[in-house]
């Protein structure tokens, strides 16, 4: 028989607590009967919530309220107060009813989620992203309503300042300070922009955040608009994210229907609306002045600052630009309070950060951790360590503009300053893990090739400098490296860092400079010994056939594209090194491990 239950009580039943809690469930079921709530409440079990020391835990849905250390005698009170009287039993509330990390109980999978703390991704993978009702049911738009009801714009800005939130797009500029200068700027029209132009190879934080929970970004922008005094918001998102665009459009339309966007929001004096602008996918358009140029319909190229966009931005009007993740933090800061946000993280970096964990780790994925978590915890605890039991070699943070950090930095607590000091950057949150088989010269070449391609060409250091650096790297990996190449790379790199116009150029030498700093011996092996220690750079490899292992099957000879292998059938073959193009086909086709590669 189907019943229209209104509430579900979920009891933690992980293997550690299951016996204890089975008893509790019996008591709950009896109490439900005693209070005559059978038609309203049902009881379910949940997987281990990972807070065993706080157990037994009860979660009540759809309110999503968690009670901790619940004793047998508390059950009657919880049922009568929470269910019947709709009042939370405050003395038992876990985390005092926070919105941050509130879905922790539902994520399960403690190994992966246990060390995470989800603020921006709090709803991702839980709610239906195409339904504003789902978002509303979990305290959606409550921060906006609270702000419109009890906060003045200046109070909102003060709250954000106190939270210590810094720009999550990579720059790390204090968000509250940016809003203040937008607020103080004089202008009849002001704009709020959401930078969703995510272009780092291997990064997908913004896409996942928008696809999983588009409404939180929109709510953050409206709150920002109220604080700064803007009436118009624009989300700049790349056209190659069609699903994210669709979900944003749905969310915006549903918000307009309910008067959460448009004129006189929720009956207040404040009006605000949001439009989308689709970018064609140029990496440089993630830089704020280039992004503004692109929205204006001009070629996406950066401009020198000052004037900063907060004074003279889009169409020369005061403009505040923040990244997707920054916006998604705003509702949580308002609801849980600046103190809660500031209680997490390190001295100069507060809150959490989302990373796209990729590369040679077992569990690739999207992780959100408190600032100050170490690289080791992310890679080895959450990421599960290096795939195929290989050894850790380096981790690249911050995408193509970041640096590679070797194992001695694994215990560095992550924040903007510590990464900067180590020669890398926070960036927007790409994190690529490399194992012992990765050639650091090759990886530096890969990232520089990307930034070189994406250089807009406006300033000479970036346009010409990265090109020359790339040429040097290519010749090193092809065995034509010259003795002074490392010095040349260092000189060019520091020059580009100092003299480029925008962040793209300034950061582009980071992968090269950091790999030279930490893996200089690999460069030297390429240049002086003409060897690639990890056997990655094909031109530097030689293939030799071992006479005693070769049975003369002729497979390598048949497959060699330049016909440089000779030998009679059933007799040992040999490779003519002068004609060999180092393609490696013979090595991979040989079934008898008779060909060695060095």
């Amino acid at each position: 028989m189907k019943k229209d239950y209104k509430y579900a009580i979920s009891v933690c039943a992980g293997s550690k607590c299951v016996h204890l809690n089975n008893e509790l469930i019996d008591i709950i079921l009896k109490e439900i009967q005693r209070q005559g709530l059978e038609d309203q409440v049902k009881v379910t079990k949940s997987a281990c919530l990972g807070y065993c020391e706080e157990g037994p835990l009860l979660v009540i849905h759809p309110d999503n309220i968690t009670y901790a250390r619940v004793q047998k005698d508390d059950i009657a009170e919880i049922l009568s107060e929470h269910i019947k009287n709709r009042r939370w039993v405050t003395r038992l509330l876990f985390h005092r009813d926070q919105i941050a990390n509130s879905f922790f109980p539902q994520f399960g999978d403690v190994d992966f989620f246990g060390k995470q703390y989800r603020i921006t991704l709090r709803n991702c993978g839980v709610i239906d992203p195409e339904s504003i009702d789902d978002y509303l049911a979990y305290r959606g738009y409550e921060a906006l309503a609270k702000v419109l009801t009890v906060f003045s714009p200046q109070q909102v800005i003060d709250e954000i300042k106190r939270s210590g939130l810094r720009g999550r797009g990579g720059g790390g500029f204090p968000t509250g300070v940016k809003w203040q200068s937008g607020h103080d700027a004089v202008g009849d029209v002001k704009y709020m922009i959401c930078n969703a132009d995510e272009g780092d190879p291997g990064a997908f934080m913004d896409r996942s955040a928008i696809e999983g929970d588009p409404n939180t970004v929109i709510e953050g922008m409206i709150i920002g608009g109220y604080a700064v005094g803007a009436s118009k918001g624009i989300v700049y998102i790349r056209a190659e994210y069609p699903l994210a665009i669709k979900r944003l459009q749905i969310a915006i339309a549903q918000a307009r229907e309910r008067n959460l966007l448009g004129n006189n929001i929720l009956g207040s004096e404040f009006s605000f609306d949001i439009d989308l602008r689709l970018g064609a996918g140029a990496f440089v358009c993630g830089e704020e002045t280039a992004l503004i140029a692109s929205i204006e319909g001009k070629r996406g190229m950066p401009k020198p600052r000052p004037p900063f966009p907060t004074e003279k931005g889009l169409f020369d009007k005061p403009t505040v630009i923040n990244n997707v993740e920054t916006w998604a933090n705003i509702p949580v800061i308002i609801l849980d309070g600046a103190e809660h946000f500031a209680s997490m993280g390190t001295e100069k970096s507060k809150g959490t950060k989302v990373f796209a964990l990729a590369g040679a780790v077992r569990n690739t994925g999207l992780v959100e951790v408190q600032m100050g978590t170490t690289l080791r915890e992310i890679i080895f605890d959450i990421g599960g360590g290096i795939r195929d039991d290989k050894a850790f070699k380096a981790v690249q943070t911050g995408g193509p503009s970041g640096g590679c950090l070797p194992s001695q930095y694994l215990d560095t607590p992550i924040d903007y300053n510590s990464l900067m000091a180590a020669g890398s950057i926070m960036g927007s949150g790409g994190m690529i893990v490399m194992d012992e088989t990765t050639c650091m010269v090759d990886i530096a070449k890969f990232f520089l090739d990307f930034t070189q391609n994406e250089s807009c060409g406006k300033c000479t250091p970036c346009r010409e400098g990265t090109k020359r650096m790339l040429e040097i790297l290519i010749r090193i990996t092809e065995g034509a490296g010259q003795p002074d190449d490392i010095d040349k790379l260092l000189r060019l790199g520091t020059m580009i860092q100092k003299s480029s116009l925008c962040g793209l150029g300034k950061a582009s030498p980071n992968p090269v400079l950091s790999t030279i700093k930490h893996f200089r011996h690999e460069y030297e092996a390429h240049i002086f010994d003409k060897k690639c220690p990890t056997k990655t750079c094909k031109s530097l490899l030689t293939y030799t056939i071992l006479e005693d292992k070769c049975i003369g099957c002729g497979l390598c000879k048949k497959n060699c594209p330049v016909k440089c292998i000779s030998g009679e059938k059933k007799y040992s073959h040999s490779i003519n090194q002068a004609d060999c193009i180092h393609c490696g086909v013979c090595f991979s086709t040989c079934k008898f491990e008779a060909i060695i590669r060095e």
Partner: protein
Amino acid sequence: MSSPLDRLIHMQSEAKNKATESKLRFPVRIFVGNATCENAAGAVHVYNELVKIKEEQKLDELYIGRTGCSGRCDKEPIVQVMMDNRIPTKYFEMTPEKIRKVVEEHVINHHVITEWAL
């Protein structure tokens, strides 16, 4: 005149009722991941197969929903099965064939297929 907060709280309670009506009253709720990454891994086929199974077997007590990506990229598509009075289970690397088996074993026979569960 009611304040913005009053209006919103009203809106929220309506939304909660809607969520209760549309989801919570179903004893079995299955959520399929649905983001670009999930879809690329084949989540759409899994979702369609579920809808088909529901029709074929007339599983009226089953609710099928979608969510965004929870972050387990290497294990997608992820399917979460929630049943009354049972521990929610997340199944990874689902395919149309596997989801059929999950419905049969987990939903109908109440037996968790541990080797496919996170």
